[in-house]
C-alpha cells in the first residue's frame, strides 16, 4: 500500500514537471495549428541557460527559472519568425517537418557550445522528508510546486489579460477572432513566447532533479506529446490532466516493466488514446 501511495505521489510530482512544457506545446498547437517538434530543443536551451546563471553566477532556483523562460521565449520567437512563419501557410506538415529540422539545428548549437557531457545544477543536498513509509525529496517537492505555480500564472494570464483572452479567441476560432479585430500575428507571437518559455522552464525543472545534456529536451519530447494527446491536442487544461495521468501511469508501469521502458509508456498511451478517444480526455477546449 505504501508502495502504491509512493508511486502515485512520485507520479504527481513528475506530472507537475511535465505539465509545464505540455501546456506550452498545446498553447502553440492551438494557435499556430502545427505540432512543434522543436520544443525539445527549447527545453534544452532553457535548461542550459539556467545552468549557466546557476553555476557561473550563483543564482538561485527562482532566478534561474525566470532566465530560462526569457531565453527560451526569445530564441523561440526568433526561430519561429525566421524559419516557421514563412512555411506555415503551406500547411501543418511542412511546418512540423521544418520544426524537427529546427530542433536538430538548435540541439547542435547547444552541443557546439557546451559539449556532450552531463552537467548538474549547483544545489544544496537535502535529506528526504519521511511520512511513515513515504518519502519526499524536498527538491522534487519544490520543483513540483514551482511547476504548479508557473502553470497557475499561465492560466491567470489567459483568463485575465486582454492578450490572453485574444489568444483564447484565436484558438477557438481564428476567423471569427480576425473579424473581431484581433491581430493574428500579435497573438501568434504571444503564443510562441509563452509556449517556448514554458518549455524552457520545463527543461530546467526536469534537469534540476538529475542532470542536463544536449538531449535533455529530446528525451521528454514523447512524454510531452503523450500528455498533450492524452488531454486532447490543443487543450491547456487537457495538457495538465494528461501530464498528471501520464506521470502516474509511468510510475505505476515500474511495477510491471523495467524502468528503461519508461518513455515507451508515452508511446503506448498515445496509441491507445488515439484509437479509443482521439479527441482526448478534455476534447479541444483551449482554456
Amino acid at each position, binding site marked *: 500500500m505504501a508502495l502504491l501511495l509512493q508511486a502515485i505521489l512520485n507520479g504527481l510530482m513528475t506530472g507537475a514537471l511535465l505539465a509545464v512544457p505540455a501546456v506550452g506545446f498545446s498553447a502553440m498547437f492551438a494557435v499556430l495549428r502545427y505540432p512543434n517538434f522543436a520544443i525539445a530543443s527549447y527545453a534544452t536551451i532553457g535548461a542550459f541557460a539556467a545552468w549557466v546563471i546557476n553555476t557561473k553566477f550563483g543564482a538561485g532556483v527562482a532566478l534561474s527559472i525566470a532566465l530560462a523562460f526569457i531565453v527560451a521565449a526569445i530564441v523561440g520567437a526568433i526561430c519561429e519568425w525566421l524559419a516557421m512563419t514563412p512555411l506555415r501557410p503551406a500547411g*501543418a506538415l511542412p511546418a512540423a517537418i521544418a520544426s524537427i*529540422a529546427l530542433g*536538430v539545428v538548435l540541439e*547542435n548549437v547547444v552541443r557546439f557550445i557546451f559539449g556532450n557531457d552531463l552537467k548538474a545544477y549547483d544545489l544544496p543536498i537535502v535529506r528526504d522528508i519521511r511520512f511513515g513509509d513515504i518519502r519526499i525529496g524536498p527538491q522534487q517537492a519544490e520543483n513540483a510546486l514551482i511547476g504548479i505555480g508557473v502553470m497557475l500564472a499561465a492560466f491567470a494570464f489567459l483568463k485575465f489579460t486582454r492578450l490572453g483572452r485574444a489568444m483564447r479567441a484565436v484558438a477557438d476560432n481564428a476567423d471569427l477572432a480576425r473579424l473581431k479585430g484581433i491581430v493574428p500575428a500579435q497573438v501568434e507571437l504571444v503564443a510562441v513566447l509563452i509556449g517556448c518559455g514554458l518549455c524552457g522552464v520545463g527543461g530546467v525543472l526536469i534537469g534540476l532533479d538529475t542532470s542536463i545534456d544536449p538531449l535533455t529536451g529530446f528525451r521528454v519530447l514523447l512524454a510531452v506529446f503523450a500528455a498533450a494527446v492524452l488531454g486532447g491536442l490543443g487543450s491547456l487544461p487537457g495538457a495538465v490532466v494528461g501530464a498528471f495521468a501520464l506521470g502516474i501511469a509511468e510510475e505505476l508501469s515500474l511495477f510491471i516493466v523495467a524502468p528503461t521502458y519508461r518513455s515507451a509508456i508515452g*508511446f503506448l498511451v498515445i496509441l491507445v488514446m488515439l484509437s479509443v478517444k482521439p479527441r482526448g480526455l478534455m476534447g479541444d477546449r483551449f482554456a
Partner: protein
Amino acid sequence: MTSYLFFILTIGGVYALLAQSLNLIWGGAGMVNLGLAGFFAVGAYASAILTKGFGLPIAIGLIASLAAGAVAGFIVTISTARLRDDYLAIVTLGFAETVRLIALNEAWLTRGSDGISGIPGPWRAELGPNFHPFYCVFVFIIVAIVYLLTKRLDDAPYGRTLKAIREDPELAAFAGKKVMRFKIEAFALSAAVAGLAGAIYGHYTSYIAPDLFQPLITIYIFLAVTAGGLGRPIGPVIGAYLVIAFLEGTRFIVELIPGLGPVQVAATREMLIGAALILILRLRPQGLLPEQSRPVPRVGDAA
C-alpha cells in the same frame, strides 16, 4: 579510395530506398513518417536475427524484413488513419523511439547496446575485395526494382487514388474510395520498403546497433525527398545521392574550419543538415524535379 566510393554509393542506395519509402506515402498520400529510422531498424534487426541467430539464408532475411516493416507499419497507422496527418507524425516519432528502447533493452534478442556483429553478407568470403562493387550493383538493382514498381503504382489508378486522398480525403471518400484502407495499405507498403532498406544495410556493414538508428537518419531522408522532388518516383532516388554527397561534402568542409573539437565538428555537420532541410522547404518546396500533373485523359473520342 575506390572502396570508399563504393561504400558511399551503397549507403546512397540504402538512403534511396528509404527515400522511395517516404515518397510513396508523403508524395503519394500526403502522410508523413517521422519514425523512418524505426522501420529501418525493424527490418535490419529482423533480417540480422534470422540470418545470424538462426542461420537462415539471406534471401529469407530480406523477405522477413519486408514483412516485419509491413506489420509495424500496419500497427502504427491503424490508430491514426482516421485522424489528421499530424497525429501520425507524432505516433511515428514515438514508434522509432520505442523500437530503439526495445533494441537496447531486450538483449536476449538484440544483444542490447553491443549490437549484432558478424551479420552475413552474400558471398562476402568468396568475393573478398570484390564484395563492395558487387553489393553496390546489388543495391542499384533493388533501387531500380523499387523504382519501377513505384513508377507503375504512380501511373496506375491506385497511385491516382492516393494522390486524390492527399489533395482532399473527404472528396476521395465521397467518390467512393475507401480512404482508410488506402492509407493503411500505402503506409504498410512504404514501411516494408524501409524495412528492406534496413536489412540491406545490415548485410552490407555486417554490424547493427541501436545507436545506428538515430532520428537524424529520418532527417536525411526528408532532406533527400524534398531536395529531389516530392511525388515523383525518380525524385527521391536522385535526392538520396545528393544527400549522401552533401553529407560527405560537409565532412570535408567542416574539417577546413580551424580549432574545432570532434564534438563541434559533428555538431556543425548536423546543424548544416538541419538548416539545409529548412532552407529547401522554404525556397524550393517542390524540389529539383517537381511533380508533373498529368493531363486529364480524353474521353470525348469514346463517347
